[in-house]
């Protein structure tokens, strides 16, 4: 470092220390600078220009002090790591086709002898292009009731070596569920880093402090070794006292991967497990990519136990949360008054009478709220509602179990590391007359015994006083999911197409469709008109009928009668070219030839369509597209066109225009929720086969 720069650096450092104090005046004006004086009557502030302004306190209503912000030079930072990275990264990565690169991340989990614990994070990233600047806004989540986030520092190192620290005004704590006081626990500390340019290096350290490990506040670490963008080096350390026992597991790591290492050692009386991984590629965009839990490499660890003990511990934690006998009796009498079907009556009560708040376990607590509070507020999250249902069944002597469940987003469960914080939801398992039901009393469109799609095919922990164990949540048969569409279309001589369409929504589709019960008549009319508009932009609604969406046990059906004037397109004086309505399949999602990640689908199920096209006898079929078919263990598609003259006789006696008819039937079946990447080619071929129909027209001649 040249000596003549040292003075400049010192001056720079002094000038910029403590900059960013803000005075707010009653008249709305604000001044920013550095507080230099304050007494009982006046405040003095040195502003950016170097001047000092003096203001009477009587005009002030707030003074904010800036304690974080400063500007210094990298040479003043005693940290070899940042010096090395700053020197190397600038040349190496600029020009890369990436928004940013994760240069280094070090995570330390530190379990204290009193069983409190901390997560310490240091992360260093470099911004490569404009899109990468979004990482300069960050958020750190915590449970405010008993956790804290401490910002050790957040700084940006620019290419010229200037280092900017964040300002307090660019730091905010906010409540995620601020509008629900009874569930206010999940907060986040949000920061906006300043002085960001392309080539800037962001370096931050935070400490997240957790309370003592207990049944209600379990200990679990789960770290991924990859990120959305290129990760050069990540270290994870678990440091714990010698009398503490852990169990851990790595996942999605190839044993032959030389970029990964694991070490166990002791230091200064502490046990340490260290995981290191180098150079992990960025996440390439592909369609149907599953949640990262399915394929990102990572490590998971918890304190040593098994699933049975974990469940027992949890059972002991919650089972005293109940109602006194008289309250319980009174409640059950109210619910069951004049009801024959006890099971459904109780389910319907919890479903409909306790408002659902979409609060998961990790957002609030692993302990259900007191049943008194749930009943007095008439609201509950996933845990509270499931637990209330369980208590009610249990009190009547039904064989029921409380379940902690996972959703597909967080699958697969890491079975080697038993801990309740691997679950984020809860349900109830009920056995009755040899049948087993899984009950999810959340949204008021879930029928008794229906498992919402996101929980199907996952793992759950059945809670029991002594015999807790993992179970598999059933996966609905794909033929019970999806849609069945039948369409009766009549083509008139004037070119108008008249359609009677019936759509049956099954399984998850039906449950989702029931959400439309919140719409009033005008809104429903618009909804249906927009639906037929998607079939053809010139569609005109004649009438429609919708099954009672409030009845959870009635099949969800929509019947629509509509016309499309001028539907047919002439291809000359005597040629009619028409595409069947509703046959508009795209192959967008399979445009790429190969995939590297597993496939994950959210439209699992079977979709069946039948279109009967009645056309005047004056027209003859000139061309029908050929049948298509594709079948594999993952997916299948069949489509068939058939001519039918059976309506001839009915037309003869009615005096109406005699019609011929074509029948089109197709069936698309997606049979799995997830599948390895090498099955993509089958999926692709099937979708391409289906999409090929969209370009195929039927040609009629006069």
């Amino acid at each position: 470092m040249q000596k003549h720069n040292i003075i400049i650096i010192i001056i720079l450092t002094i000038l910029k220390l403590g900059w960013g104090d803000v005075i707010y005046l009653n008249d709305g004006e604000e001044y920013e600078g550095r507080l230099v004086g304050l007494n009982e009557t006046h405040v003095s502030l040195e502003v950016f220009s170097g001047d000092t302004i003096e203001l009477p306190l009587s005009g002030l209503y707030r003074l904010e002090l800036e304690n974080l912000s400063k500007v210094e030079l990298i040479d003043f930072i005693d940290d070899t790591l940042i010096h090395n990275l700053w020197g190397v990264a600038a040349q190496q990565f600029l020009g890369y086709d990436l928004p940013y690169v994760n240069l280094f991340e070090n995570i330390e989990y530190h379990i204290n002898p009193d069983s409190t614990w901390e997560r310490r994070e240091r992360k260093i990233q470099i911004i490569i292009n404009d899109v990468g600047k979004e990482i300069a806004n960050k958020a750190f989540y915590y449970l405010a009731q008993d956790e804290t986030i401490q910002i050790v520092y957040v700084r940006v190192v620019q290419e010229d070596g200037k280092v900017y620290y964040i300002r307090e005004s660019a730091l905010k704590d906010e409540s995620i569920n601020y509008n629900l006081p009874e569930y206010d626990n999940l907060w986040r500390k949000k920061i906006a880093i300043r002085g960001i340019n392309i080539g800037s290096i962001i370096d931050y350290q935070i400490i997240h402090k957790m309370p003592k490990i207990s049944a209600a506040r379990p200990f679990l670490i789960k770290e991924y070794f990859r990120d959305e963008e290129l990760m050069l080096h990540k270290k994870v350390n678990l440091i714990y006292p010698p009398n503490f026992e852990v169990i851990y597991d790595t996942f999605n790591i190839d044993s032959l991967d030389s970029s990964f290492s694991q070490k166990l050692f002791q230091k200064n009386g502490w046990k340490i497990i260290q995981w290191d991984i180098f150079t992990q590629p960025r996440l390439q965009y592909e369609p149907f990519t599953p949640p990262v839990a399915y394929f990102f490499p990572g490590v998971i660890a918890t304190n040593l136990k098994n699933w049975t003990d974990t469940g027992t511990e949890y059972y002991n934690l919650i089972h005293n949360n109940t109602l006194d006998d008289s309250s319980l009796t009174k409640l059950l009498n109210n619910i069951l008054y004049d009801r024959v079907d006890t099971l459904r009556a109780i389910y319907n009560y919890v479903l409909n009478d306790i408002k659902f708040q979409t609060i998961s376990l990790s957002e609030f607590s692993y302990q259900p709220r007191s049943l008194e509070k749930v009943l007095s507020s008439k609201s509950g999250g996933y845990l509270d509602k499931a637990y209330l249902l369980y208590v009610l069944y249990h009190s009547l002597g039904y064989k029921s179990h409380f379940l902690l469940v996972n959703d597909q987003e967080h699958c697969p469960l890491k079975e080697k590391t038993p801990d309740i914080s691997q679950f984020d939801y809860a349900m109830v398992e009920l056995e009755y007359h040899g049948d087993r039901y899984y009950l999810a009393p959340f949204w008021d469109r879930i029928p008794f015994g229906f498992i919402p799609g996101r929980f199907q095919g996952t793992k759950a922990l059945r809670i029991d006083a002594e015999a807790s164990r993992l179970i598999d949540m059933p996966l609905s048969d794909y033929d019970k999911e999806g849609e069945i569409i039948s369409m009766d279309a009549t083509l008139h001589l004037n070119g108008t197409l008249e359609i009677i369409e019936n759509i049956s929504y099954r399984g998850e589709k039906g449950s989702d469709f029931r959400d439309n019960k919140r719409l009033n008549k005008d809104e429903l009319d618009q909804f249906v008109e927009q639906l037929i508009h998607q079939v053809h932009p010139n569609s005109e609604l004649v009438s429609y009928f919708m099954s009672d969406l409030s009845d959870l046990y009635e099949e969800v059906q929509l019947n629509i009668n509509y016309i499309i004037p001028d539907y047919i397109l002439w291809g000359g004086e005597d040629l009619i070219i028409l595409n069947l309505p509703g046959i508009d399949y795209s192959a967008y999602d399979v445009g790429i030839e190969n995939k590297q990640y597993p496939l994950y689908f959210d439209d699992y199920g079977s979709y069946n369509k039948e279109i009967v096209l009645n056309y005047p006898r004056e027209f003859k079929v000139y061309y029908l597209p050929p049948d298509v078919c594709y079948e594999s263990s993952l997916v299948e598609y069949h489509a068939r066109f058939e001519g039918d003259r059976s309506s001839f006789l009915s037309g003869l006696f009615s005096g109406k225009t005699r019609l011929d008819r074509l029948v089109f039937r197709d069936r698309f079946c997606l049979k799995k929720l997830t599948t390895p990447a090498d099955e993509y080619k089958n999926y692709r071929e099937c979708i391409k086969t289906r999409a090929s129909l969209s370009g195929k027209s039927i040609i009629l001649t006069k």
Partner: protein
Amino acid sequence: MKKILIFSSLFIIFSLISGEQIWLKDGSSLETSIKFFRDSVFFLSTGDSLLQTEVSEILYGGSGETKYHVGNGQDFWDLQYIMDMIKPAKLDYPDAGGIIILDEGLEKLHNDGKRSYRYHFIGMILKPEMTYWGENSLYFEEGRSTVKIGGGRTIKPDGTIYYLEEDMVKVTMPVEGMEFMDQDKYLSFTLPEVQKGDIIEYYYERNTYNPYDHRVFEPSYYFQSSEPVLISRFTVEIPETLELNYIAKNFPEGGGEPLVRISEGMKMYQWELRRIPPLIREEYMPGEIDIVPGVYASLFGSWDYLFEWESKLNLRRMEVTPEIEQQALRITRGLDRVDDQIAAIYHWIQRNIRYVSIKGGVGSGLCGHSASTTLENKFGDCIDKSTLFASMLQALGIQAYPVGILTNDNGQPPWDIPNVYANHAITEIHLNDTFFFLDPTSSDHRFPYFSGDDHGTLVTNPILGEIHSTPIPEPDDNMRSYQIDVVLKSSGDAVIDYSSTYTGDWEAWIRGFWRDIPRSEWENQISEMISADHPEAQLLEYEISNPERLDKQFGLSWKYRIRNLSLIARDLMVFRIPDLRQYSFPEVATRERKYNIEYATSYGLKQNAKVEIPLNTSVRFVPPEINIECPYASYQAGYRVEDNFIIYSDSFKRYARRIPADYYLEYKAFLNQISRYSKYKIVLQKTF
């Protein structure tokens, strides 16, 4: 759970104290006075001291530790009266989610300049979805205002009543988008036992004991909701000596004039509407100001006072510092033309000042931060960026100002009533005896284009004391232009050369789309796009022009092969020209429409195609030409045959932002013709 009819009788207040309230970094606070500050230490009147690094903020003259209380509900309505009102209403609105029985606001300006806002709500919940009415969050600003809940209750169908208790009330910091940092606090509460079939009632009062300006009093109110409203009432009370300027918009014919009376030195203006039907949303509908009955009021008869206040703040923030001047010169080095200089700075701010909004009070709330601060932080929100932009232009001798704008999706406020309507800020530039606008909040707009939601509305320029309107660009300045060349083989396969260029909002949108995708993924993205309609498409080459160069027009081009573009039906070949847009207009999907159709801005699309057909074919059919127009848009399209080429061109231009509701059926018919035409196919005959 508390027993019926028992409620706590407390009030939620922020106790006003003298001296300071000192908030420490650890979240605790002290109420004391500071004797003096020296060498980064606060010396307190108690004799203690605090390091500057321990203190986060100091509040003067107006805040204390929060105590949670709920009032005794002395102003609750009579239960029988409520029940009598609701009975006929349920018959009138059988499928409503809920019925608002009372929606009453009272804005009061006190003689000492303080003001209060009182709100009273009564509603009946008819569908479970409306139980959220029982969850409320009330805004307040520490040091300026307090909130007091007068009472809250839930009334069951059998007459049982449950009262709001303090454990259902909390002060919180609300979550906002990642870019937003402000000091807002909310008092949130949840009424007990709320279910379908219940009636809920609550009222609260917000007292602004420390307004930033005693003269600025701008009450406004909406009278409609997405559910039916039985009584909506708004009262404004001011000292008798003052005069209220007001406008009532969208009231039923003959309505809008308030009941005015004077009592005890106060003048009261009261508006009331009854049995207001629910607002049913439509696609592309106007902003609420244009359709919902509303009252907008002010004590000002002109904008002078507000302009003067705001311009003082604006001018101070626009100060050109040496750093700003140096940066402006650096950006425009070598550029001689003024337009190029403006463009260069416009582009630089878009790309180098990222969007972060930090609001500490009304000064930064309305006028942002100094240009020098924004330049140093390299972040800022709309007003920060507009101020910096204006400042940098000023440094070059170009006259420019940050101006306030209400984006056009909100509707047109009554500009005759001076008020702070703006929800956004852009920059007004004066050049050659005219002026124009640019919006540096964007990140992808090429000069001279700016964001569509700034078009066709008004801006306030406090420094000049003027109100101007922003133009709606011609469709050519929001245009997509496609060129598609096709070589069709007798097998039905084809090779396609596609290219497109853009202007205006379209260009910004599509440039932003492609910039978000890493270059290594462009090929996959294009493959997906060409496969959408043609599953057998194979990409051969591509180019994406100027995604990062804002000074150059953005363009796309690619070449690809399709198998089976044309259907071969015996001796016929039938196909649509690939990549030609099929028009679909969801805004005209419904049979009828109540509200105007409102778009953000104008629209233009031009498509040109040239198809080389196989030599052993002749053209059997191409669609006839179409040339239609209406007062708001025009469309021309046609095919012609030249030797073994089919030439196609079309042009769709919409000039207007607004299509009146009484023109809907004609407009629908106009657009439906276009939709239909875009579905046509070409028929070739094989001549063997």
